[in-house]
């Protein structure tokens, strides 16, 4: 079904095709199983027809036909279940592939975390119906009607001709209604996204809404948008339901045409010479088969929104998959702490005003610099520059003999500690060793001791950080920094949300960690800033 303009849909459609290509076999199997349903469908119609046709000779004669019908029914059920399972398996495989690709592109600073999260969960999930329902339905809609018409032709070529003849207007009708429904439901999809966006935004802005006691006012805003969406969706659904009613009507009309022919043929009242002489069995078979000819196309039109959901999700999925393909050089790690120079640095993310402009700073080898300023002033973005997580939109940063504008991979140069270090289920020692998987046990022990951990390093920590206090969690981050012998140390808010006593206890550890390295600390805290050789206010 080609119900939409090629130019607009070409890119996501192509990406989708490429993403699905590796699982072609599984998807072909799912489609094959859906098409195979044509065999028991014919069997069911034939069984019913044989049973009914034999009724005049007594119900005992009808048993073999009835058994065929019952057996075919069960076979259809089993086949449908197999098709469902294989389709779901294919969808699972495709989603697994795409999610992995998308995750590789995530955390790259290209898209906001919220967008990436939506792509990773809902976006990937949107492929499910496309793979498990739409694609098999599309193939079946092309093949199954022809198979069934061929089966009808064996019994009555004239009836097969009628079916074939009605197929054409049916396909045209389906394309037209599908197109109308497609355009409308895309609009509805956008309206739904707008309301979701509004809802999320107002939840995010709750602090301001509460402070200004605007709960009722904003609830009314959401109510209006919600009402609006309901009206819009109502219109869209009306079209979708109308088109499905039209398809149903078309199919009933076609069946009626077959029924009229069969009925008059049986009564021998045809106004023209009968092209073939039907028995009750044959007529019943044709009548039972006729609705099955149109069913695959009606199923396809019902699955059409699955395709639209997948294509709506495709652009952001494609964007993240591209982001994964970045290769860069890894300059050798200098043996001593490097000098760092920021020259006229501008950082601007895709949407919005630059977070930082015209930033200049010279840092001597081994110096410690504190970047002080309110949130949003660009402190963290400056640190992210070194990891390629924020864009160097203007100016230059020189680290030792390397320029950041060349996008080098400085991972090996950098030790990092932030306010929410990653915690994995496992022992404390294993958690520290994330910084250096092959670290000898004594080095881990030493790093733990320098970070101020006392007691058992083999105690178990769960993934939510259970068993670690807020201060200990920061110590975990610093222990990792001690363990990794990198010449640059970056600390992002190392003491945020800690009480004064815990912060004071952490200060000597930070001082020790900074020793012998060029250190940048982004912080709100004057106490942390006091550790630095240079304090920069942003």
């Amino acid at each position, binding site marked *: 079904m080609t119900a939409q303009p090629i130019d607009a849909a070409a890119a996501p459609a192509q990406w989708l095709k490429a993403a699905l290509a590796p699982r072609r076999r599984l998807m072909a199997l799912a489609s094959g199983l859906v098409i195979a349903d044509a065999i028991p469908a014919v069997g069911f119609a034939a069984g019913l027809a044989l049973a009914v046709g034999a009724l005049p000779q007594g119900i005992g004669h009808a048993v073999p036909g009835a058994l065929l019908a019952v057996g075919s*029914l069960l076979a259809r059920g089993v086949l449908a279940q197999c098709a469902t399972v294989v389709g779901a398996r294919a969808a699972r495989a495709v989603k697994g592939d795409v999610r992995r690709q998308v995750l590789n592109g*995530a955390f790259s600073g290209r898209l906001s975390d919220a967008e990436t999260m939506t792509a990773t969960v809902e976006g990937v999930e949107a492929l499910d119906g496309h793979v498990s329902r739409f694609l098999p339905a599309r193939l079946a809609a092309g093949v199954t009607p022809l198979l069934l018409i061929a089966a009808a032709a064996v019994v009555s070529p004239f009836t097969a001709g009628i079916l074939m003849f009605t197929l054409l207007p049916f396909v045209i009708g389906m394309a037209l209604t599908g197109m109308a429904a497609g355009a409308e439901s895309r609009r509805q999809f956008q309206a739904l996204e707008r309301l979701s966006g509004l809802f999320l935004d107002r939840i995010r802005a709750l*602090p301001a809404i509460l402070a200004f006691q605007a709960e009722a006012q*904003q609830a009314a805003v959401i109510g209006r948008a919600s009402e609006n969406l309901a009206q819009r969706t109502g219109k869209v*659904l009306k079209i979708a339901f109308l088109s499905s*009613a039209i398809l149903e009507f078309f199919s009933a009309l076609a069946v009626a045409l077959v029924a009229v022919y069969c009925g008059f043929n049986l009564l021998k009242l045809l106004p023209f010479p009968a092209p073939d002489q039907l028995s009750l069995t044959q007529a019943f078979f044709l009548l039972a088969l006729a609705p099955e000819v149109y069913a695959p196309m009606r199923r396809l039109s019902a699955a059409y929104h699955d395709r639209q959901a997948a294509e709506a999700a495709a652009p952001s999925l494609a964007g993240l998959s591209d982001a994964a393909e970045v290769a860069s050089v890894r300059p050798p790690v200098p043996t001593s702490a490097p000098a760092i120079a920021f020259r006229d640095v501008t950082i601007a993310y895709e949407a919005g005003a630059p977070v930082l402009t015209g930033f200049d700073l010279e840092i001597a080898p081994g110096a410690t610099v504190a970047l002080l300023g309110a949130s949003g002033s660009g402190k963290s973005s400056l640190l992210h520059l070194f990891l390629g997580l924020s864009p160097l939109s203007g100016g230059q940063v020189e680290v030792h003999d390397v320029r950041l504008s060349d996008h080098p991979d400085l991972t090996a140069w950098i030790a990092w500690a932030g306010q929410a270090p990653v915690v994995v289920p496992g022992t404390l020692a294993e958690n520290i060793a994330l910084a250096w998987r092959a670290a000898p046990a004594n080095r881990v022990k030493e790093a733990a001791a320098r970070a101020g951990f006392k007691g058992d390093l083999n105690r178990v920590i769960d993934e939510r950080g259970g068993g670690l206090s807020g201060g200990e969690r920061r110590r975990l981050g610093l222990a990792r920094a001690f363990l990794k012998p990198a010449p640059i140390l970056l600390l992002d808010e190392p003491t945020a949300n800690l009480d004064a006593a815990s912060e004071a206890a952490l200060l000597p550890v930070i001082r020790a960690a900074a020793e012998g390295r060029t250190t940048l600390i982004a912080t709100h805290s004057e106490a942390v800033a006091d550790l630095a050789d240079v304090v920069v206010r942003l």
Partner: protein
Amino acid sequence: MSALNASGVARLKSLIRAQERRQGARLLAASVCAALVSAAAVLLLGVSGWFITASALAGLAGPLVAHSFNFMVPSALIRFLAIARTGGRYGERITGHDAALKALAALRPQLFEGVARGPVTRALTLAGGEASSRMVQDVDAIQNRFVRLSAPWGAAAGMVAGIGLALLTGWTTALAIAAASALGVLAAALVGRGLAEPAGRAVQAASGELKTEFAAFAAAAPELQAYGIKPWAVEQLAERGAALERATQSLASAGGWILLTQSAAMALAIVGVMATAGAASPPLIALAILAAVTTVESAGALLTAFRHNGAVKAAVERLGDLLEAPTSAPRHSVAPTIDLSSTDLSLSPPQRLAVSGPSGVGKTTLIERLMHLRPPVPGEASLGGVDVAAVSPDAARALFAYAPQQAVLLAGTIRENLKLALPTADDDALWAALEDADLADRVRAAPAGLNAPLGENGARLSGGERRRLGLARAYLRAAPWLVLDEPTEGLDAATEARVLERLTARLERTGQGLILVSHRPAPLALCDRRLTVTGLAPSGAVQMAVRETA
């Protein structure tokens, strides 16, 4: 998921029931249509089977019988039934979805208000968390609950029509069809409860866990990069994703099993007809066979509902979890006097208090507790002589107009953001507030002026502009106290002087009191009292000392 929040779930269910009552007429119409569809479908096939068989017998009996065979009435009936089925299905879908959409449109603002008026810690931890996106999805899931309300009626009508038709064949045949159909529904219900419901819940849970873990890793992205453990994190998340996919597949497979029970029930019904209808005429047996098949088929919508049950139940539980009975504090208003218990400081407008102290020491905590934007600590302060913790959030917040350090902005226009503070404000008032915040020139320069869209959380503004828009917004609210947290941070000296001069003029005009948090000398000079915050006591109370200034 944590333990069930029974009171919240009960509250949500009562909201949903209220909507069901409000949409009663539409839901009734949908149910009637569903019944019409099933009855028409059963009669259509039954009559068709009878008709074709009778035609064949008449044809065999010779031209005389064939010519006297009345084909007009049955064929007219068949056409009528086909139209009734199509029209009924259209009507059911339209009215059912219309009811669901209208109900959802009414539920969304109620849920929002319920969350906003809940305990402040719960409301604010929602902001930005995955719970908020959950809220959107789960509300959508509830739509199914409304749409499927007509399903039992369709199934029942199909059953009645099937039994009615089959009675023409014989009462044992009717009984056989009824039994097979009921067995099918029962089996599907069991499969639904045993397989689909746990799978549906697992899908919701796995998707929540994936999001939670994603958020945790996203917060630590630089660490993942610096230690080269991103591949490991991707692996972890991919495993979570695989769990989600497994659950989705189980749900799909459970749906397949439910359909299989339907096929089996159809087969059983045919066997039942064959076993019981021996004595009837061939056309009536054909009628019974086809009626049997469609009777079982008409329960299809009900079976789909069994499949969705798990997701709907999980959605109701999770949304209910967000709703809590609002804290019951006295609602009456309080006088705008502020007493800070650990000092002998007692303030009322138009006094001006400066709050200073090193970063992170608890200044913002102190003022936000006064406004119930953080849970207040009993014994720390009182408003109008009543302990803050005992004052209702509404009464406390009514006393303050607050410009926080980081203004939280709506993703709307400048006008919408300003009107958050005063919905009735006219343009003159908006411009005056912008003027006082030294932002009017900037807004005037934008082509769309007050209607300029800001993007998410003011993404199109610089940090300083965001702060000043927050300031203008606070100016518009005629509360007894103006609370400004670092209002001139990041402004150059000339702008700062201009903003402070206009602030002074405004305070003199309005008679508002001022609470100002800053560490800069110029704004502090506006104030007659000075409070130094020194830290948090082990009890959680803010420790402070008063210093009189000239």
